[in-house]
Structures are given as structure tokens and as C-alpha cells.
């Protein structure tokens, strides 16, 4: 069972780079080609006449205002389709020459298609770009915390499927604590403690008792869901005013920076939790790859035996870093309550932990890439809600489906046989 979390491709890491040079993988050009075809069908064959107006105005009145940008639907569609076809052909040429198609290439391609889709779908309407992006960041924030916790946990060699449970525990405990004490700081700290407690169970079972980590994670999710729902139904529902009316964080404008158009309201007029998130992303990136802590953590996750040989206590390193990951995810849980709506409601994380897990793998166990993946998911789900309000020719359910389909394409095509931390999911039993 312990080998289950590693894909078959991970069995031959040594020849990985050689195989890449020798074998030409046509997955990326084929994937880009398929989407280019979709673009032609949607934007040209089924093209719509009219204009889509991109507005950059912000709710923040202090910000410098930009003029609106009107775009002709059909013209934009044709341009986007041409670019898509050319880029797909370009990828094919790169593969023909045995050059790896870089990630930024795919990113630019995706961005082009997204713009094309936005123009096509909002034809005859005004799309508020700033609002779209601000909403996306709001939806992404808990995903990013979850993904960061997942990255740390998996890098140290413990597969963390319990992100969902940690988020939910954080959301529940922070709402109750902040309601009782009236203090936001206490709420946030309590959320982190809740995440750590879930991590303690995960760590104890996975590290001390060497139970299969995916199993513990799944069961912990069920346990936290059951526990919070039970307590919500029996205790919170009857005492809403005393136990479930927490205060909420207010947005803080950072002077000067918050006045930059689009970026200002997006990045610099946020709650404390989001600012903490920026710090967490940077700190974890630097920490993982530039500090002794990160080196030890990665060593334990890649080759616990070697780490043990040079005197690193594998069990302790794993246990405490999983606890740290729990604190970070728990903070993300507080975002659901204190950072956005306020009161806790039953199963309010609603599968976000699993999306965060997808972001970890999509982001190849790298904090920055995982953050970008989480942003992509947040953008996709917010795009859906914005577009469904504007009225789109595509049925709402397909828009809801889109991020998941894209993820499958990405995991199967672009990411493909990725290699996670070598020892992730495997208990280390000192011999």
C-alpha cells in the first residue's frame, strides 16, 4: 500500500532526464492543438458579433482610474485563434527539435485563450476586470494556504490528504473562539492551533505508528467533518449569537501601493490574513530552498535514510513540520470565517482542501508554482460566477466544470509523469 501514492513513472527517476532527451513527448503540442481547435470553433465558427468592454475601474476611489477598453468580439476571436494555432505549431517545432516546451510558453498560451474566451462570452457586456481579479484572489486565499501546508508536509515526506479537515477545523474553531473572546487575534491563533491538532493526529499515526498516510488523511477529513457538523448542529445552532457571530477582518489599504490601478485594489487593499499569506508564500519559498531548515526538510522527504545517517532525526523533523503545515492550513481555515463571511456553517470548506491538494501536485510541490495553481483555480471558479451573472452562451454547469477539466488536462498533459518527493507517503522505520 505504501507504494500506492507514487506513480509508476516515479520508479525510474535516474533515467528521467535521459528519457526526456531521447523520447519526444507530443503531449504538449497535441494539447495546445486541441485547445486551438476549440478556440477556432468557439470564437470563429460560432463567433459572435458585437463588442465586449473591459473596464478597469475600481471600487477604491483613491486609485488612479484607467480608461475602458472596448474589444470587437469577432476580430479578437480571430486574432486569438491565429495566435493559438501558431503557438501550437511552435510547440510542435520545439518538440521536433527535442526542446522541452517551457512552462511560460504554456502560460502565455493559456492567458491568450482566457482573454479570447472572456471577450467571446461577455460580448455586449462590460466586464469589470478588477472585480474579477479581486474575487479570484478571495477565492484563492484559502487554497493557497492549503497548498502551502500541503507542500511543506509532502516535502518532508508525509502525504497530507487532511488539508480539507485542517481547513474546516480552522474555520470552526476560529469562528467560535473569535465569537467568545471578541478578539480576531485569538480567533486566528485558535485556528492555527486547530490545524496543528489535526496535524498532531496525522503525524502521530503516520510517523509514529507508520499507518498509511493517505488513509489517515481521508479518515481525518471524515472525522473533522463529522465533529464540526455535530457540534454545529447541537451547540452552535442554538447559540448563534454567543458562539457563532465572530467579528471580521477589515481591509487595510497600504498607502501609495493601493492606488495603483488594478493591482492596488487587488493586492494592497486586503485583510491581514491575505497579507500574512504573501509573507507565508515568500517565507516558505526562501525557507525551503535557501535555509538549513529547508534543506533538512527536503532531505527527510527525499531520502530519509541518508538524512538519518547524517544525524537528522527523521521522525521528529517529520512530526514538527507536519504540525507547522497544519498551522498554515488552519490559518487558511480562519479565512473562511474571519476573513470573509463571518459565522461558521456546516461543511463550509466544501472540498476546497482537495482542490488545494490538486494545486500542490499541479504546482509540482513548489510553493510558488502551487500558489499560481491555486490562483488559477480561484480565477476559474470566480470567472464562472461573474460570467453566469452577465449571461453566457455556455451553460452555467459547463463553466463550473471547466476548471476541473483543465486540471485533468494539465495533470495528464503538461505535468504528466511528475516526480514528487521520493519518500512522500512512505513511513520511515529506522532499521
Amino acid at each position, binding site marked *: 500500500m505504501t507504494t500506492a501514492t507514487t506513480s509508476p513513472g516515479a520508479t525510474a527517476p535516474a533515467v528521467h532526464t535521459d528519457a526526456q532527451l531521447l523520447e519526444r513527448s507530443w503531449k504538449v503540442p497535441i494539447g495546445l492543438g486541441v485547445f486551438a481547435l476549440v478556440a477556432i470553433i468557439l470564437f470563429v465558427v460560432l463567433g459572435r458579433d458585437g463588442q465586449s468592454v473591459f473596464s478597469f475601474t475600481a471600487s477604491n476611489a483613491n486609485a488612479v482610474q484607467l480608461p475602458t477598453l472596448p474589444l470587437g468580439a469577432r476580430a479578437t476571436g480571430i486574432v486569438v485563434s491565429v495566435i493559438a494555432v501558431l503557438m501550437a505549431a511552435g510547440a510542435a517545432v520545439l518538440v521536433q527539435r527535442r526542446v522541452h516546451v517551457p512552462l511560460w510558453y504554456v502560460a502565455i498560451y493559456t492567458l491568450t485563450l482566457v482573454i479570447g474566451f472572456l471577450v467571446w462570452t461577455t460580448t455586449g457586456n462590460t466586464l469589470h476586470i478588477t472585480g474579477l481579479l479581486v474575487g479570484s484572489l478571495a477565492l484563492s486565499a484559502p487554497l493557497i494556504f492549503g497548498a502551502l501546508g500541503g507542500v511543506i508536509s509532502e516535502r518532508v515526506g508525509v502525504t497530507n490528504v487532511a488539508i480539507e479537515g485542517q481547513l474546516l477545523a480552522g474555520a470552526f474553531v476560529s469562528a467560535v473562539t473569535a465569537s467568545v473572546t471578541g478578539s480576531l487575534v485569538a480567533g486566528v491563533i485558535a485556528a492555527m492551533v486547530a490545524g496543528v491538532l489535526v496535524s498532531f493526529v496525522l503525524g502521530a499515526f503516520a510517523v509514529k505508528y507508520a499507518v498509511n498516510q493517505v488513509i489517515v488523511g481521508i479518515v481525518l477529513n471524515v472525522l473533522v467533518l463529522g465533529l464540526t457538523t455535530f457540534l454545529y448542529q447541537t451547540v452552535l445552532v442554538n447559540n448563534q449569537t454567543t458562539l457563532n457571530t465572530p467579528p471580521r477582518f477589515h481591509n487595510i489599504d497600504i498607502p501609495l501601493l493601493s492606488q495603483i490601478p488594478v493591482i492596488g485594489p487587488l493586492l494592497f487593499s486586503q485583510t491581514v490574513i491575505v497579507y500574512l499569506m504573501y509573507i507565508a508564500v515568500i517565507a516558505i519559498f526562501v525557507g525551503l530552498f535557501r535555509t538549513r531548515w529547508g534543506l533538512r526538510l527536503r532531505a527527510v522527504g527525499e531520502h530519509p535514510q541518508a538524512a538519518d545517517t547524517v544525524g537528522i532525526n527523521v521522525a521528529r523533523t517529520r512530526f514538527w513540520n507536519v504540525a507547522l503545515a497544519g498551522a498554515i492550513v488552519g490559518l487558511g481555515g480562519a479565512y473562511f470565517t474571519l476573513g470573509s463571511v463571518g459565522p461558521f456553517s456546516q461543511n463550509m470548506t466544501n472540498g476546497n482542501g482537495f482542490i488545494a491538494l490538486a494545486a500542490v501536485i499541479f504546482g509540482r510541490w513548489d510553493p510558488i508554482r502551487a500558489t499560481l495553481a491555486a490562483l488559477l483555480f480561484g480565477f476559474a471558479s470566480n470567472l464562472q460566477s461573474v460570467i453566469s451573472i452577465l449571461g453566457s452562451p455556455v451553460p452555467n454547469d459547463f463553466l463550473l466544470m471547466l476548471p*476541473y477539466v483543465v486540471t485533468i488536462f494539465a495533470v495528464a498533459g503538461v505535468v504528466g*509523469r511528475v516526480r514528487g518527493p521520493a519518500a512522500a507517503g512512505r513511513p520511515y522505520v529506522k532499521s
Partner: protein
Amino acid sequence: MTGSENTAPESRSARVLREIASGGVALTVLSVILAFVIGGILIAATDPTVQQTAGYFFARPTDMLSAVWQSVSGAYASLFRGGVYDFTAPDFQGGIVSLLSSLNYATPLIAAGLGIAIGFRTGVFNIGGQGQMLIGATAAGWVGFALPLPAGIHLIVAIIAGLLGGMVWAGIVGLLKARTGAHEVIVTIMMNYIALYLLQFLLHTPVLRAPGSQNPQTPAEKPTALLFSVFGPNYDLSFGFVLVVAATIGCWWLLSRSSLGFKLRAVGENPRAARVAGINVNRTIVYAMALSGLLVGLAGVYQVLGQNTTGFGSDIDAGIGFNAITVTLLGRSRPWGVFAAGIVFGILQAGSNTMQVAQGVDIDIVTVIQSIIVLFIAAPPLVRAIFRLPAPGSRPRAARSKKVAEAK
């Protein structure tokens, strides 16, 4: 999972003896007891009478203790009444209704649990039970209400459609994993959402939505397609349960007697060794996922043709896709283990309804108890430590046996 470590040939009777001796059965029982104790603490702690009497605990401690006893014993008594045998009913027929309803609740849990167990034994984590059930239920349900077929044939066609639906949905994941190495945990989770939104979309179109209805709900199933009651209307046990017994026997045969089952287990134990031994690992993974989805599809079939026959919506999976994972873990991925675990969960589920109505204890306490049972069972050393049981004495050296136990 335990059991898979027993690579050395060992007769079945010897294994049973050793397991009882090393406390395998005892551990399961103790885990269940522990979980119920923790559940009892939760029930008592959230009971308003207990909270009230706790206020003057030191003045009259008996008040609180009796309140605790009242709430916990009342809750578990009604759990038993609703899940196993209703001792308040006047006759046997009225009493046994509880157990029959538990078996009906257990039916989809066992079916889906078997599917997930086949995945686990092959080393594939099928988290996509929800999606496979939704697609299976949609296929079976559509055949059930849309096609005018004669009785008998109608049911068979509907069941096959449901099985194929689940199989295709999981097979896609298997193919993606085999062809591109896409991680099945991620892909199955994504496929859950895709199935959900696909079904929601179809429920808004005339394909599935009942004519003239405003709700996203299908028309009722035709009576010719329904899973009938085996023992007649007085003792309501669905034919689905018979199917699930057959599926359990089939899975047992497949995993322990067939050549495909051997390949599945070989890949699950060690894919590299399996590859060296000449087993096509990728193809085996596709088979495992397809079989897994087929069985989960059976759970979907039961939901539309046995449980909820008056038309279904997008919540037809009823969380079974995820609950089945816990069932599988409790059953240690063995067919008969899953069968027994499914019945335990069925009893808890049926009983929890009575418990909520009679005692006002929220249903979700059962989820807590279930997950705590599985957690304890997953870590035998922990239960041994709590009850101060000796480590399994099958190995002479204490230090070694401890390590073996920890490795599990």
C-alpha cells in the same frame, strides 16, 4: 493494509488462529468500544440536561451522573432499536424491520466499498466514488424511466447500464494514469466534480428532467425496472442486497482465486516486482480502475432503482462514495471484511435516524464514531497502549515484534 504483508504461504486456519492470538479480533472490538466511549462523551457533553446539572455538580453529583447515563444510554438504546432490532415492537415482524433497513442501507456501501477495495489492493486510490456513482445512477436511472422494456429485461438492462456507466467513468482515470501517469487521487477528485456538473446540466435539459417539473429532478422510475423486495412486502429486503452478496463472492473469487486477481495484488504489493515478473502494470491498473468503477456503479444502480425510486437529483450519491472509503478501510480491503464493515455502517446509519428522532442526538455523531473506529483499527499499537495489552507474542523477541507491529 494488513494481510497484504502475509507473503509467506500460510494455511487459512493457521492465520485465523494467529490473528485471534495476536489480538486482531480483540483489537477490532476494543476499537469499536473506544469509539463508542468517545461518542458517548460527546453526546453527554452536548446534552442540555447534563450541562445544567453540571452547574451544581459538587452540590448534588448524582444529578449529573444520572443525566449522563440517561442521555448516553438513551441514545445508544435507540441506535440499537433503529439499527438492529426494535425491542419495543409488538411482534417479530415489527422488530426485525430495523435490521432489514440496516441491510438496505448497507447495500450501496458494500458495493462501493468492494470497488474501492479492489483499487486499494492494486495500489490505486479511488477517491472518485461520488462521480462513478453519479454516472452509474444516471445511466441506470435513465434506462429505468425512459426506456419502455418488458419486466425482467428492463431491470437487467438498467443494471448493466449503471455498471457500465461507473466502469467508463473510472476507466477514464485508469487510462489517464496508465498512459500519462496522471495521479489518480487528483483525477478522481476532478472527475467527481465533472460528473456532478454534468448531471446538474442534464437535469436542466429534457433528457433527465421530469416533464412539466420546475425542479432539477428526474421522473419516477418505471415499476418494471425496480429492484424488488426479496421476501415480499412485509419483510422489505431489496434484491440489491442479493446482488451485493453475489458481488462479494465474486470479488473474493477474483482476488484470491483468479489470475487477474493475482496480477492486481502483485501490482498492489510491488509494481516494480510485478513488472519484472512480466505483468503489464499499466494494463492491470486500467482493469483495476474499471472493475472498481463497475462495483461503485452498482451502488449507484441501487440508489436509483432500490432506494430512491421516485426520481433523483444531483445528490443521489448521498455521500456514499466517500463513506465507502471508510467502509473499505474498516474491512481492511478484503471482500468479506468490507461486507461486514458495510453492515456495521448500515446499522449505524439506520440507527442514527431513530436516535435523532427519539433522543434528539444529531446524526453526525455516527460519522464521528465511524471515523474513530477506523483510526483506532489502523493503529493497533495505539489501542494496545491504551488498554495495556501485550504486543503480539507470535515472535519470540520482543523488540523485533514491536518493530513489525509498528511497520504495519
